[in-house]
């Protein structure tokens, strides 16, 4: 036990002696949360809508006013020629154009139908789709009002779905990225830091010294992990506090459950770090592997940025082997939906199995590579 204690003390000394590391490890979660929260937002605000048509037309004016009143949409420029749309899009002055047919009001009243065309700047498909959806929504509202006005007050034959997002009524993207960033940060800190600190000992030759010492390899591993485990716990607390009080992401479920699952995930990440340390012989390699081989796939495949459901099935299988994916799913369930453990048994078993597997393989390899 004495051996073990002096070794853990030494690990903490390494970390705290290197100010830059401490700074990176403790400040990175804050920066990431703030970055994702304020800069990288996937919500649409202030989309610019151009109107192509005649504003003196009463029906057109009514619809335009509706669009203008919508919080997410602003009216850009009004002009009469559809040929101008292209120019406006190219200059980046408009995100979407709504074109009304000539004599819109007359046709609507006499023929009972008049056409509107919505043209979106599709160069960024995600945001284009969202903006078009907003505009369509506004026009549908108008449609509903027309229906009511024309068919009298009674219920008409058509039905309009009222949409409500149960767990995230405001459709805030922070509800998605906070659990995502938690997964990313914990994965990054635990794996990268552990890997680098072990490989560093290999590189400088101190590992040899530890191996000929009476310290058992298992204890070397454990005492390497403890400081990073502690740091990760601090990070977890930082992220949770920030998300609760700065980003206003709710924590509807049990904090205990969240911590419990996070600790499992941290152990999995530590095991990955150990695995990386076994296969790399220099700190640079370790950094590269954890940077490119771990962070990127985690970002892309864990559903933080791209929803896994819309990936081709092959990539969905790839995403299934990313531990962070399962962790993030569970975090969302606990934080946003507020459900209990019963609703995530499958995910937890998968994560636990991965953890056990990684731990087994990495300790095994570590011992064999002495």
């Amino acid at each position, binding site marked *: 036990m004495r*051996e073990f204690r002096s*070794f853990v003390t030494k690990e903490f000394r*390494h970390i705290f002696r*290197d100010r830059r590391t401490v700074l990176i490890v403790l400040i990175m979660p804050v920066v990431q949360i703030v970055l994702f929260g304020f800069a990288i937002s996937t919500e649409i605000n202030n989309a610019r809508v151009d109107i192509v048509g005649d504003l003196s037309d009463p029906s057109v004016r009514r619809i335009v006013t509706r669009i203008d009143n919508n919080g997410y949409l602003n009216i850009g420029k009004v002009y009469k020629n559809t040929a101008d749309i292209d120019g406006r899009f190219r200059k980046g002055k408009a995100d979407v154009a709504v074109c009304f047919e000539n004599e819109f009001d007359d046709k609507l009243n006499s023929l009972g139908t008049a056409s509107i065309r919505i043209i979106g700047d599709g160069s960024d498909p995600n945001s284009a789709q969202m903006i078009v959806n907003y505009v369509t929504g506004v026009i549908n509202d108008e449609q509903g009002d027309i229906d009511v006005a024309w068919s009298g007050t009674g219920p008409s034959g058509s039905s309009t779905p009222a949409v409500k997002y149960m767990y995230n009524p405001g459709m805030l993207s922070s509800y998605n990225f906070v659990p995502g960033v938690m997964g990313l940060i914990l994965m990054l800190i635990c794996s990268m830091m552990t890997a680098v600190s072990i490989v560093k000992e290999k590189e*400088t*030759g101190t590992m040899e*010294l530890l191996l*000929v010492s*009476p310290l058992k390899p298992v204890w070397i591993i454990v005492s390497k992990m403890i400081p990073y485990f502690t740091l990760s716990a601090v990070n977890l607390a930082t992220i949770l506090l920030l998300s609760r009080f700065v980003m206003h992401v709710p924590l509807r479920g049990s904090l205990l459950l969240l911590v419990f699952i996070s600790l499992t995930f941290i152990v999995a990440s530590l095991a990955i770090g150990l695995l990386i340390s076994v296969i790399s012989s220099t700190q640079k390699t370790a950094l590269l592997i954890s940077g490119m081989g771990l962070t990127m796939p985690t970002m892309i495949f864990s559903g933080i940025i791209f929803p896994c459901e819309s990936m081709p099935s092959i990539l969905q299988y790839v995403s299934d082997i990313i531990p962070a994916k399962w962790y993030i799913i569970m975090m969302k369930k606990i934080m946003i939906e507020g459900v209990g453990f019963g609703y995530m048994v499958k995910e937890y078993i998968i994560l636990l199995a991965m953890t056990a597997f990684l731990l087994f393989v990495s300790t095994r390899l570590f011992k064999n590579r*002495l």
Partner: protein
Amino acid sequence: MECDKIIKVTGLTKRFGNFTAVDHITFDVRKGEIFGFLGANGAGKTTAMKILCGLSLPTEGSGTVDGYDIRTQQELIKRNIGYMSQKFSLYPDLKVWENIRLFGGIYGLGFKEIKQRTAEMLQSLGMEDLRNEPVGSLPLGWKQKLAFSIAMVHKPPLVFLDEPTGGVDPETRRMFWEMIYRAVGEGTTVFVTTHYMDEAEYCDRVSIMVDGVIADLDAPDALKDKYGVPDMDSVFRTVAARRPAGKEAAGA
């Protein structure tokens, strides 16, 4: 049981697949002597040493180190030997006293014992003023001397030195050997590998490994007489040149 033999191995062999790194070596090291373990790079020195330190198991053969079996009592061996490696291997970002504290702790010394050993050690090294310096800022010679003292922190009866003086200037090397002699004077057995043949002269007995086998083993003077050459350098080259023809290709 022969009490005066601190290391005793018979037919020690280590194979990696088809490659035989150590091929049936048999030798012993007497208590209190300086045993030089010579050989060219790749001759199998490191592999043999790893087995003796309890780091790896022999494929064949048996032996004891400090009375403990190299196959079954590796943990006890580790506890009772000191080890210093060719690469400088203390923690450069830790202070001098923190390094001593760490290895004292790892070898199971108590807090008071460590404190006392630290004071003794710093005094005999003349490094009291450098107590709070990070080890990385010390000159290489100082580091090596500190590393040697730390390898002896738990006062082991046997210490393994793997090319301890690599890259060190002649003056520091001389001082380093004075430390070795002092340790031997206090009853420690020293098992040392080196590429410096002048250092081989300082050993009580040397063995010369060539392609996994011990080509010769005796006191330096006896070897010089045997081959009729004036110094160990010539002895080494004569012995190494006798490598069996069949092994030439494999060794290259």
